[in-house]
């Protein structure tokens, strides 16, 4: 019989570091996160339903947070929210590490931490407000789970490679997860990192690429002819798998650990602005905050899904 654990974080983060310039030691911060959903091999239909419910709540909370703060970048947050929720609620272990390379999706990360009980509603209300510790791109001083300040694209994979190499040298059973955008691969440093990850056979590194096919000022195809991005990445000698990025069952399966000989790259086939009809696959969802009319429509659409 499957192990059932109540869907809540078992240990809550004591907000002792707020306002401090110190950053938490890696092991301490990760050890604070406990996951209440069984691992994939113990997944039941009930569990999938449970996660899906939590994702719906998270999507509503994400949209509300961005609307109340008047902040854009919602589209790229909605495209990766499902994967981040599945990862944090069913896969990530205390000894693992997560690096958010596409820092403009930090809203989704805050919501994931909220869903784990590590951020409160009061915390979310400060999103991008003066004096907040929850800015529009992640700060390593905000929260122990947020390991790195990112936002300039093309840094996260190298940082993750450093963590993965560190794990190898110390013979730790750690998996390092790195979430990137697809447009981010126009930054040359990503390929530098990929070469070294392959060279060192980092089988403890899993890269998630949010392939939503839209970037700041055009499609990834128009700007970079990136329709074959997965093949290009695979050309560097790493395992690449395409994953339906909004299918919870498929995500649970794809994110589960598998033995391998090198780094894995999961290309999440996603929709920018996922869940909001007027934002899906539209450039507006990259930068523009929701208008009041759009927010009311969004609430209705997300309520209809529930």
């Amino acid at each position, binding site marked *: 019989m499957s192990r059932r654990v109540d869907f809540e974080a078992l240990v809550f983060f004591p907000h002792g570091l707020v306002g401090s310039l110190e950053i938490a030691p890696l092991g301490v911060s990760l050890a604070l996160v406990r996951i209440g959903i069984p691992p994939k091999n113990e997944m039941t239909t009930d569990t999938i339903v449970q996660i899906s419910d939590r994702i719906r709540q998270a999507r509503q909370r994400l949209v509300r947070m961005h609307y109340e703060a008047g902040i854009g970048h919602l589209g790229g947050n909605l495209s990766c929210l499902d994967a981040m929720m599945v990862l944090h609620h069913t896969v990530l272990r205390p000894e693992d590490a997560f690096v958010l390379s596409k820092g403009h999706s930090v809203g989704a990360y805050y919501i994931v931490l909220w869903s784990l009980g590590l951020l409160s509603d009061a915390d979310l209300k400060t999103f991008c407000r003066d004096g907040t510790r929850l800015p529009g791109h992640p700060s390593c001083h905000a929260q122990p789970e947020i390991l*790195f300040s990112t936002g300039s694209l093309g840094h996260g994979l*190298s940082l993750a490679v*450093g*963590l993965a*190499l*560190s794990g190898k040298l110390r013979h730790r059973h750690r998996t390092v997860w790195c979430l990137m955008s697809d447009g981010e691969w126009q930054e040359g*440093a990503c390929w530098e*990192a990929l*070469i*070294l990850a392959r060279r060192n056979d980092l089988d403890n590194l899993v890269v998630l690429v949010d392939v939503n096919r839209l970037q700041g000022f055009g499609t990834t195809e128009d700007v970079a002819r990136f329709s074959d991005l997965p093949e290009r990445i695979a050309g560097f000698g790493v395992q690449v798998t395409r994953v339906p990025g909004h299918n919870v069952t498929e995500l649970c399966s794809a994110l589960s650990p598998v033995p391998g000989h090198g780094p894995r790259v999961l290309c999440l086939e996603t929709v920018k602005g996922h869940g909001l009809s007027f934002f899906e696959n539209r450039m507006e969802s990259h930068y523009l905050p929701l208008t009041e009319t759009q927010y009311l429509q969004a609430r209705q659409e997300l309520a209809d899904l529930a």
Partner: protein
Amino acid sequence: MRKPFAQAVAALAACPDMVFLTGDLGFHALESVRDAFGERFLNCGIAEQNMVSMAAGMARDGWRPWVYSIAPFVYARPFEQIRNDICMHHLPVRLVGNGGGYGYGAQGSTHHALEDCAAMSALPGMRVLVPALDEDIPEMVAKLMELPDPAYFRLGFDESKGRIAAGPYAPWRRVASGPGLVLCVLGPLVWQACQAAEALPPEIRPEVWVVTELPVREVPPPDAFCDALASKGALCVVEEHFADGGLGAQLLHHLCLRGCAPHRVAHLCAHTYCGAGHGSQAWERQRNGLDAEGIVAEMRRIVASAS
């Protein structure tokens, strides 16, 4: 200075949290480090941006990484990685740039490092170390072992071959006395400064100070230096670095804020990447007035203008 550096760092291999990263450089120089560090010596390939971020990732997990390359490849190419990934996280990564100033001579301007001290000093928390003498290296490496801050280590070439009695290591050292003005020099140019001092008549010989750590706001001059300035009233700074943001600019800013800037100031520094051609480090120094002859000429000009 690569040889004493390699010796000093290889001796650190016993420290289990030390890791050494190189951007595919160190042939005929770092073999002893490679052998001592074993699997903790990582050739990260010709990919400095990744190397710096990777070092930050490792430092975030408790390692103390050394990151080695030719100077501009380790501070200029990956500048944003240094700023964001090392400094914003205040991680103890040691960037080692070989060939400070015109060190790579006729190899060309792309290999010269003439704004490195300014660029690195501008970053909050970053310390800049510019060894003057080979014998400084073990002391400075030991210091870096303890320093919790990020650091940039600018390696040059020590021409003095043990002929300067600098005394115990300190970031500010008086290496020659004289009745003339205060001559303040950055790192390995100290040999040219001492040669210049000896070439001058005893009655106008400068008091020579060598500086090996920046930024000045973090490593200010000692009282003895300020006292000397107050009594002599004139200062000449010499550095193989552009005028803006280096030792001269930082020192004068510091002295002005303290209200003790000298009345007469001269600044010998690098002027261009490439002037009327390319040449050795000695040739570039001569062209920019940074060799002993140029320093002597400047000393005489200052004395003449004061009389």
